[in-house]
Structure formats: structure tokens, C-alpha cells
């Protein structure tokens, strides 16, 4: 049997320290936690930075390092620093070294990097080793060159290679959410379907149970299935909460594709062992012919400047569609005149907050707002051009009248200056898989001695 302790759905979200202690007392074989996701958008991969505050990350990671020392088992984090790019991995390695020094200890740390070089990927593309998923942007050598960071999602094989170094701590770049949990049970010969299914159920911590914010759960894997046990007071897993977790952030609730195959839970059976624990058997792992890893890449698609104006005058609120269209048209004309830009070289959008900002043309509810926020979003090829367009837009947002005859109106600006540079507009531009001959191809594994010498 292999026991994996999962402290929470992501490092930075917090965990229940009492439940963590309970988990350590139950003698886990491994502590595994996810460090990221694409869910917060392309900026993090683009820049190679973390979403969470360094202070939160350090405090929570320090708690897990102490727990690891008490348990005497490896601690593994996947997708370190939100995006799992090399720069974010290095950030967590630095934090780890700092924690170890401050606590007067040391540790053997395996660092697995998932970064892929454009040069290697261009060769793989030419050899037909990169295959699009559905839906995928068009891929080309130029696209690969345009990405600031490209990562491949490591699977269980790469995590096991890191664990095989005998490391106390594994800090991994981009991995699948499940690989860090499934790896050890697979290496120890547990049921493969159960290893991946349990990993999927457990990857968000206690989200598969009641009291989801408590975080901490234990997964026990064996030759036939797995058992999930939430560890916080007031947290209960039931067949319903566990099976429902297959729906979460998953486009298909029965299938999950991983490097080297896929999980099929169509025939899984969920049984309540008692009021807290659920037993699952019957999940299947279906190996694939090829070993593939998914690629993620981010590139800059432009630069943005935003402005916000607030409209409170009822006449203007009532006529906001007309007013916004008129401002956009007149300002676009001015941009063409003053900056000699072609119409497709810039984009001005006035988004009406309080009317249909969330859903745009899909909005079905017609409200009667007392005021509207006009969020102007300018996109251009450079930041300098974007802010210059912002300055051309500024007088319209402040004073543009509904009709030419009326007295000049003024609208509320919350800031001076109203132009706010948002920096690059990042976009995810790969939804492809890369076929590897050997799972370690393209992954870099180093072992470091961190902390006190």
C-alpha cells in the first residue's frame, strides 16, 4: 500500500495545520502538492512568474518542509510557481534555500525542469513529432520562436526519475496536476487505473469532500483501488462528492489524458467505507502506442493601455451604446490622422461595466443601471503607441457630448493620469502534444544540496 498526503489544491491557497499534523501521524509515504495551473491566464507562463504572494508561498512551503522532516518522506511539488517555467522553478528553489538556512537545516533537492527550447521543437515539428489537439492554433517555426516560454507537462515517469535520486524534496516545473500523486503508487506496483484516478480526485485537495477549504486529504493506493480520506474536522468524503470531482475543470468526466495513456473511469465503483472515507475500484488505465507530453506556450500579442471613466448622467447612461460607438469612431479617426496608423494596427474597445461587460453580445438581461463604468481597452503593437492612443482618447472620455449643440459635459475619472499601462497582452498559443522516444527527452533533472553547508 502507498499513502500520499495532499495538503491542499495548490501551494499558496493555505491548508489546515491540525489536519496536516494528523496526516503526518498517519505515516504517509509521500507529501505531494500542486504549485500551479493555467487557470489564471497566460501572463504567468509568458513572464515565468508566480501568481501567489512570495510571503504566502514561503510560509506554507516552510510548514510543509517541517512536516516532511517529521515524516521522513519526500515532499514533491509540481508546476512550481504557478506556471512551471524555469524562472518560476528557480524562484521556489531560492525560497527553499532561504527556509532551510533560516531553520538551520539542509536538504537534498531534485529540480526537474520542463522548459522546451524553440530550437529542439522546430526539429521535432519538421520530423512530424508535434501533433495538434482540438482546437489548436496554427503552429509554425515563427510561432515557436515568438514564445517567451514553452513547457511540456511532465508525467509520472519524470517525477519517478526525480524521486529515484533519493531527494528529500522534488521541485518540478510544469507537470500534469495528477503526475506528482500518481508517480509513487505506479512505481510501487499499485493498480494503474487507481493511481491516476486517485490522483485526479486528490489533486485539488479537499475539493473532493465537504469543507473543501480545509485542504488536507490522504490517498491510499493498493493493488485493486484507492481510498480517499479527508483529514480536517468537519470534512467528509462521500461517493457523491468524490465522483463529482471528475467533473471539475475537466471537459470529459470519464476520460483523462496523461503522458503514456489515458484514464477511463466509466466503470469505476464508489463505496462509502464510513461517513468520512470513500473506496474506489474499477477505474482503468489504457496505455497509448506513443509517449506524448502536452505543450504550453505563451507569446506577446500586443501591448495594452486602459482607462476608466464613470458615467452617472442618466441621459448618457441611457444612450451609452451610441455614445461609446461615437467616441470609438471619432478617436479612431484621430489616431489615423495624428499617428498615421492603419485601422488594423490598433484596437479600441469601450466595455460598459454595469451593462454587459461579462457576457458582451451574449447578455440576455437588460438592466437599468444608475451609472456605468466605461473601461477603455487599447491594444497596439508597442506600449508607447498604446499609451499615445490613450492620450488621444482621454479628452473624448472626459468631455464628448451626445449632440453637437449641447453644453460640454464632464465625466468622472477615478485616477490621474487615467491612462494605465497594462504591459504585454500575453496569449496561450500552443495546444499540441510532443511525441518523445524517451520520457526524459527534453526534461532536465539536477540534484542540489540546499540550506546549510
Amino acid at each position, binding site marked *: 500500500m502507498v499513502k500520499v498526503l495532499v495538503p491542499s489544491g495548490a501551494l499558496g491557497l493555505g491548508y489546515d495545520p491540525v489536519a496536516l499534523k494528523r496526516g503526518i501521524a498517519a505515516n504517509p509515504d509521500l507529501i505531494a502538492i500542486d504549485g500551479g495551473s493555467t*487557470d489564471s491566464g497566460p501572463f504567468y507562463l509568458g513572464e515565468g512568474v508566480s501568481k501567489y504572494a512570495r510571503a504566502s508561498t514561503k510560509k506554507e512551503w516552510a510548514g510543509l518542509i517541517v512536516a516532511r522532516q517529521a515524516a521522513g518522506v519526500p515532499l514533491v511539488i509540481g508546476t512550481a510557481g504557478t506556471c512551471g517555467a524555469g524562472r518560476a522553478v528557480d524562484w521556489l528553489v531560492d525560497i527553499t534555500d532561504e527556509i532551510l538556512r533560516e531553520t538551520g537545516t539542509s536538504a537534498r533537492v531534485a529540480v526537474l525542469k520542463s522548459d522546451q527550447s524553440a530550437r529542439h521543437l522546430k526539429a521535432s515539428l519538421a520530423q512530424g513529432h508535434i501533433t495538434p489537439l482540438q482546437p489548436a492554433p496554427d503552429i509554425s517555426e515563427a510561432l515557436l520562436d515568438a514564445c517567451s516560454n514553452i513547457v511540456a507537462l511532465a508525467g509520472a515517469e519524470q517525477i519517478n526519475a526525480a524521486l529515484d535520486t533519493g531527494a528529500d524534496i522534488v521541485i518540478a516545473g510544469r507537470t500534469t496536476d495528477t503526475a506528482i500523486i500518481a508517480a509513487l503508487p505506479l512505481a510501487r506496483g499499485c493498480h494503474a487505473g487507481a493511481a491516476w484516478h486517485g490522483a485526479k480526485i486528490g489533486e485539488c485537495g479537499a475539493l473532493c469532500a465537504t469543507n473543501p477549504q480545509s485542504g488536507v486529504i490522504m490517498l491510499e493506493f493498493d493493488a485493486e483501488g484507492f481510498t480517499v480520506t479527508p483529514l480536517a474536522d468537519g470534512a467528509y468524503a462521500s461517493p457523491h462528492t468524490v465522483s463529482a470531482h471528475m467533473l471539475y*475543470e475537466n471537459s470529459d468526466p470519464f476520460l483523462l489524458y496523461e503522458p503514456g495513456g489515458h484514464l477511463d473511469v466509466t466503470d469505476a465503483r464508489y463505496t462509502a467505507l464510513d461517513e468520512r472515507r470513500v473506496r474506489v475500484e474499477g477505474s482503468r488505465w489504457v496505455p497509448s502506442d506513443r509517449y506524448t507530453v502536452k505543450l504550453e506556450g505563451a507569446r506577446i500579442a500586443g501591448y495594452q493601455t486602459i482607462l476608466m471613466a464613470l458615467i452617472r448622467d442618466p441621459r448618457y447612461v441611457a444612450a451609452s451604446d451610441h455614445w461609446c460607438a461615437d467616441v470609438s469612431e471619432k478617436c479612431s479617426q484621430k489616431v489615423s490622422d495624428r499617428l498615421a496608423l492603419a485601422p488594423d494596427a490598433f484596437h479600441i474597445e469601450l466595455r460598459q461595466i454595469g451593462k454587459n461587460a461579462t457576457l458582451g453580445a*451574449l447578455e440576455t438581461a437588460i438592466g437599468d443601471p444608475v451609472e456605468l463604468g466605461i473601461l477603455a481597452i487599447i491594444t497596439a503593437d508597442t506600449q508607447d503607441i498604446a499609451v499615445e492612443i490613450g492620450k488621444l482618447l482621454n479628452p473624448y472620455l472626459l468631455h464628448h457630448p451626445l449632440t453637437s449643440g449641447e453644453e460640454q459635459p464632464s465625466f468622472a475619472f477615478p485616477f490621474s493620469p487615467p491612462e494605465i499601462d497594462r504591459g504585454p497582452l500575453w496569449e496561450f498559443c500552443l495546444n499540441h502534444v510532443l511525441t518523445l522516444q524517451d520520457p526524459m527527452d527534453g526534461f532536465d533533472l539536477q540534484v542540489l544540496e540546499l540550506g546549510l553547508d
Partner: protein
Amino acid sequence: MTDRVSDIVQKVRSKNAGPFWVTLDLFCGSAPAFERITRGLSDEKIASLLGLESGALKRFELPDLHVLKFSAPRPAVQGIREDRDMHGAGWAVLIAELEID
């Protein structure tokens, strides 16, 4: 008689399923609610509300969980200029406010 979806189900949730997909889960809470929701929400109805071709939708009926699930490629990939909703949260409200027979 018509009712809002939100008056029939326990919860409607929409989330990204990776940057290129969005997924919508309707937790009906009981067999009768599940029956009514699966009958009342055709692929065509959901697709037209979300501005998609109905062929683009994947539909899953999970009677044991009383859950109806739809997944679709995001009309705007997460985070691009045209995307208004980084986490795909807004679709849930649109569906919850829909009236069905």
C-alpha cells in the same frame, strides 16, 4: 409553466477546462430535477445561448450524480484580446437565468 434553471437545480458552475475549453456543470440534486433539466435543455438551446454551433458542444448526462454537463471549445481562447472572462465564470449565470418549460 416555465421556471428559471436556477429555481430547479442546486447549482450551475462554469469553469475553464484548460485555456481552450470551457465546461458547464448543472447539479440538479434530484432525479425529477435531472429529468426536467435534461429534457428542457437541448444542445441547440445551450449552443444558441452561448453563441456556438450546436455541433461544437459535448453533452454528458450523469443520472447517478443528477448532473448534466456541457463542454465546448472557448469562443475566445482564455486571455486573448477578445476574451472577457479569464476563468469562464459568466456562462453559469447565463444558464442559471434561462427559463425552461
